[in-house]
């Protein structure tokens, strides 16, 4: 479906106060557009953010879903986007920041091309996940939640990927690596362009 057709539907649904439908459509539109592989202009992203926020303005408890969608849109939560959300949802900026800071899911720094997740669930932990994490921190020279200066890798910790038989597990993007040894992390990272 083309973008103008989408926009026409937005207006239509807005008239009917079908904000939730608009919200779902926005998510859909975001996914569809992010598949066309071209670099989307930042301005275009802010335009979409405004539509999302507008569609959610009257719904109680809209803040968290809006933040989720925004993070999906930008890859992180830029300050400008948070200011728009605060203004449009009529929530103090301190409250928006408080919610962002409370959930580890939300990030206010841009993420790298690949997110490296080290499992520290019980099985991975007892089989040396912690040492793998340390090795990755050293190799990438960043802390947990950090991103390398070349924006290639971000490092995060996970709590059980449901693959305990493969412990310790590391995920890079959507690829899974099993029985990872601290000495082997360099090789894994090198396999990513």
């Amino acid at each position, binding site marked *: 479906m083309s973008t103008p057709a989408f926009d026409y539907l937005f207006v239509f649904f807005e008239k009917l106060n079908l904000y939730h439908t608009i919200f779902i459509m926005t998510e859909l539109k975001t996914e569809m557009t992010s598949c066309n592989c071209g670099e989307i202009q930042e301005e275009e992203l802010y335009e979409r953010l405004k539509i999302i926020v507008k569609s959610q303005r009257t719904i109680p408890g809209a803040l968290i879903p809006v933040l989720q969608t925004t993070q999906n849109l930008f890859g992180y939560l830029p300050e400008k986007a948070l200011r728009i959300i605060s203004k449009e949802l009529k*929530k*103090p*900026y*301190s*409250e*928006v*920041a*408080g919610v962002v*800071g*409370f959930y580890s899911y939300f990030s*206010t720094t841009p993420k790298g091309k690949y997110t490296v997740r080290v499992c520290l669930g019980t099985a991975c932990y007892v089989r040396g996940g912690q040492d793998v994490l340390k090795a990755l921190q050293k190799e990438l020279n960043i802390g947990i939640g950090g991103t390398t200066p070349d924006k290639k890798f971000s490092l995060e910790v996970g709590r059980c990927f449901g693959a305990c038989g493969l412990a310790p597990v590391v995920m890079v993007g959507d690829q899974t690596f099993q029985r990872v040894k601290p000495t082997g992390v360099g090789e894994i990272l090198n396999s990513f362009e």
Partner: protein
Amino acid sequence: MTTVYINKQAVEISEGSTIFDAAAKAGIRIPTLCHVENQFPKGACRVCMVDVEGARNMVASCTTPALEGMKITTNSKNVREARKFVVELLISEHCGECKTCVRNEDCELQQLATEMGIMEIAFPGETLKTFIDDSTPALVRDSGKCIKCRRCMTVCNEIQGVGSLFAQGRGFDSKIGPAFDQHLDGVMCVQCGQCAAICPVGAITEKEHIDFVWEAIEDPKKFVVVQTAPAIRAALGECFGYEPGTRVTGKMVSALRLLGFDRVFDTNFTADLTIMEEGTELLTRLKKALVDKQQVALPQFTSCSPGWIKYAEYFYPEILDNISSCKSPQQMFGAVAKTYYAKKAGVDPKDIVVVSVMPCTAKKFECQRPEMNDSGFQDVDYVLTTRELARMIKQSGIEFRNLEDGVMDSPMGSGSGAADIFANTGGVMEAALRTAYQIVTGRELPVANLHLQPVAGLEGVKKASLKIEGCLPAWSFLEGVELKVGVAHGLGNAKKIIEAMRAGEEFHFIEIMTCPGGCIGGGGQPRFTTNEIRNKRIGAIYAEDEGKQLRKSHENPEIIQIYEEFLKQPLSHLSHELLHTKYFDRN
């Protein structure tokens, strides 16, 4: 009605009440560090634990509804130990050096620790990191002392609707503060200090001016004059063991003189001056609208409360033209002290130091606004809160309770009863109408005892209308006009009245005071302020007004004198220069 049994005593309470409310009704005090009167309970501090028969665990009484037939124990070994444990945990994180804390002996956590017999740090270990934010002129935050009770957050968000403070982060590292570790001066904080007035510990306090004031007093070259706001006399006594609502005007004057101030003057004098200027401004606006058919910003809003001014500059810049251009009484005082009085007393204005005693923290911000220097100097140099004045009196060794009553100096020391009531919500409105009505009709305001009852008291938004009849010839254009006035206190209520106005409700004049109850409930007043205490202070202020012969601003002889000798008439060129100001869009 619901019946619950607290310590075997039957208590009848209305449905929807909490156990905490029920206990209060039964006269049982349950300790708490996070409860805020009339606000949705947060259950943050966990100190108010009680035992409920049949419940799996102890419950926080502030968040637990009192249900029919509940059997509650508020005093047992288990309950006492649980509460003590909670306080011990709070103390284990609290980075509070009681000996050197400004809240020493005025700290709710310390009081509870003493009461519970906590004699050692039960859980030594890591304490919170101290992060001092003294970026603003009025307030200092110390994150190491914060126990995360969230009272400040409740007043800032739910009562004031400002939203500068919120819980950030989670767990041990969480902080209460502006977004992303910003300083207060980087966010929309109006400096009202309601957070400092409600903080149970020393995590938010006013920025002290005490040392500067001592230095000025002890400098022989300086001529130090002090002005005291009307709200001080109804509250200062609380710092010296008097019942709330005790008036201590005379003792306060004697104490100020003993502290070494060269002249003791009254902000009431410039409150009367404000009425002359602001009342005339209102009548001028009405004339422009009704006779000259000009576009003029109506309703007119009052401008005495600096927190409200900053709030409007942040949140409602489009109504700045509606706000009276009059400076607040504090700033008018500074401007005339360093011009009119300097000349009269033959003192070089550069040697005059003007100190204010205010119930307010935002006044510290206001006196430092760069435009407040129309005398050629910073008009008001230092601002002490009521609490700071009490501390200075204690530092000096003055036995406050034994003082004789003193009288203010002249020519800026007399104020009418109309000036006294500036301290109460609804008071500026009443004072303005006492004068404006008489100017227009030649007769007294036609209400019992000069009190405009509908705008008095603690209801958040109050309205009244007054039909103007029998005008003097010069004011005949107001004949038959139904003057509609509104009053709001607490910025959350200010927002309500502005929204009502935007929705089309007609007003001519609106009074806004930043703090709940007006200045008597200001951020610089003695702790701890509840509605009961607000009402007592309000009563004391009305009694002060009623006890005076002089109850209308325009009859104050010192006011007549300053116009004759200096300003000539309200809204004169000189008045505009010294007594009026402008506001800035800060959005």
